[in-house]
């Protein structure tokens, strides 16, 4: 990299850093208080305190964490409409993401998440471990587990639960490093998912 470009990159990084207000509040989500999530009617009652991160990966997406997004990432997808991707695309044309569609079947939702992760992160190491039926939001849903290695070399485990209600996709996913962090919190996450209503 030459010096000029290094300078340009540094300027770009500075611009990014100061564009985002530093005092962006992460909100506390208190134990036992029912809240709606992801700008939708999806509501959950957490069994412990969580932090809601201010950054949004997409229009109807919201992320909670305990120790930071890289250590435990609980993401709610609240009513993704047909024709839309799970998270916001970096560039609609140049870097398109797989879309949720009207004809998408429950059993294909793991593939949708897999395709989104692989495309967004540009990784090859993603593995679906299990896909099973479950009741979610009072409907037939799907719960699935997966594992992937990100560019930061940490292998993460994930578990997601999803259902399609009135043509919209509702999903809760939890990703955490396979070592320690996933097992530590997954029981809390499952309890939280069980409280989800529309």
């Amino acid at each position, binding site marked *: 990299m030459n010096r000029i470009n290094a300078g340009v990159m540094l300027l770009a990084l500075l611009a990014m850093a100061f564009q985002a207000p530093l005092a962006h509040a992460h909100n506390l989500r208190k134990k036992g208080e029912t809240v709606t999530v992801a700008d939708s009617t999806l509501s959950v009652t957490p069994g412990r305190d969580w932090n809601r991160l201010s950054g949004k990966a997409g229009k109807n997406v919201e992320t909670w964490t305990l120790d930071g997004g890289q250590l435990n990432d609980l993401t709610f997808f609240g009513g993704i409409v047909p024709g839309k991707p799970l998270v916001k695309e970096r560039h609609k044309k140049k870097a398109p993401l797989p879309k949720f569609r009207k004809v998408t079947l429950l*059993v294909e939702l793991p593939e949708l998440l897999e395709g989104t992760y692989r495309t967004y992160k540009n990784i090859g190491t*993603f593995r*679906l471990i299990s896909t099973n039926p479950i009741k979610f939001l009072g409907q037939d849903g799907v719960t699935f587990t997966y594992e992937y290695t990100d560019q930061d070399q940490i292998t993460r485990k994930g578990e997601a639960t999803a259902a399609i209600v009135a043509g919209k996709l509702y999903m809760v996913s939890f990703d955490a490093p396979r070592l320690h962090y996933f097992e530590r919190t997954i029981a809390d996450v499952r309890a939280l998912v069980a409280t989800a209503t529309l």
Partner: protein
Amino acid sequence: MNWLLLAGALSALSAIPAAAQKAAVPPPYAGVYQPQGVDEIGWWRQDDEDERTLAASPLVIRDEKLTGYIRNVLCATVGTGRCASARVYVIREPVFNASMSPNGTLRVFSGLLLRMRNEAELGAVLGHEFGHFERRHSLNLFRTQRSGTDLLAWSGLLASMAPSYNVIRVYRDLQWSVYGHLFRYGRDQEREADALGVGYLNQSSLPPQAAAAMWQNLMAELEASAKARGLRKPNFKTVAFTASHPPEGERAATLAGLALPDGSGRDNRAAQYRAALAPWLPLLLEDQIKLNDFGGSDYLIQNLAADGWTADLWFARAELYRTRGNQRDFANAIQFYGNAISLSGALPAAYRGLGLALTKTGRLIEGQAALQKYLQLSPDASDAKMISMMVPGAMRNE
């Protein structure tokens, strides 16, 4: 190190001056080399550290046979005396990329293996990288590289200040220990590496014309990818290898001109390449088709099928069409799954995809039959319970 080309470069290929100078025979290799001087010693130390991280990375494909094969291709290209100084690591990432760092770490990305069609093309890429290594191009860039390291420190600090998803990603992109440092070689260095790369091939038993052919193929893929996305021209920045280097028309012509004309009759060892990659092809294809790059993936599959369609290729193409998910795609996918099944009965996933595609086009009864077959062939599949809910009576048959 950048195999980046312009659309316009291709037209230049046909207009090579007949009297173009052929690549000179590479100079004799000095043998085991130890870094000289404070800059090189420091650079190697950092590189050794990176290699330790790389060697322990979960992203490295640990298959002795595959790694050994790539090594043999490198040895066949640059000669056995030279190749002893390289250590090959195959990284599982579906991109066109390869690099060789100063201490002899040769990184080969899995996406490169999918795109090469024979040993000569692979040798052309490896030889080019080896040329940078042999001429110690990165050492000349060490000073600018140091300013890059400052940048890394700064970006880490700034990323932690701005908690947005994208900034964190940018920071991660700057973690190069596994992926290799970003070398931006100058034109003269690229020219030198091109000359050396083709020079090795000229001297080897592989056809040196492969360098230009490989280039042409990559260009066509990028164009197919851009076209399917409705873009006017390919976005070179999306390809790791080409992002750091502006496309040059001059280069393609030079490459073709450097090749010994009478080398074109040599065996490019395509059959051996296919055989060596065969165990990995399904995985490489899967990684590619799940990248949501319809145009590029379809081009690659058809290109691989130029020597004959196999069940793996039909299956990959079917999955590609089904996951794009337009109604017309399902019709094509159904046909492709059928082709895969007729070539190999032992592909349970083909019955799964066929069943899903049939279901989505309203052919429920046929779809259920296909899913039933999937469950029979693969009763312990990770999604067996989910699929069996779509097949009335499936539980009873288990």
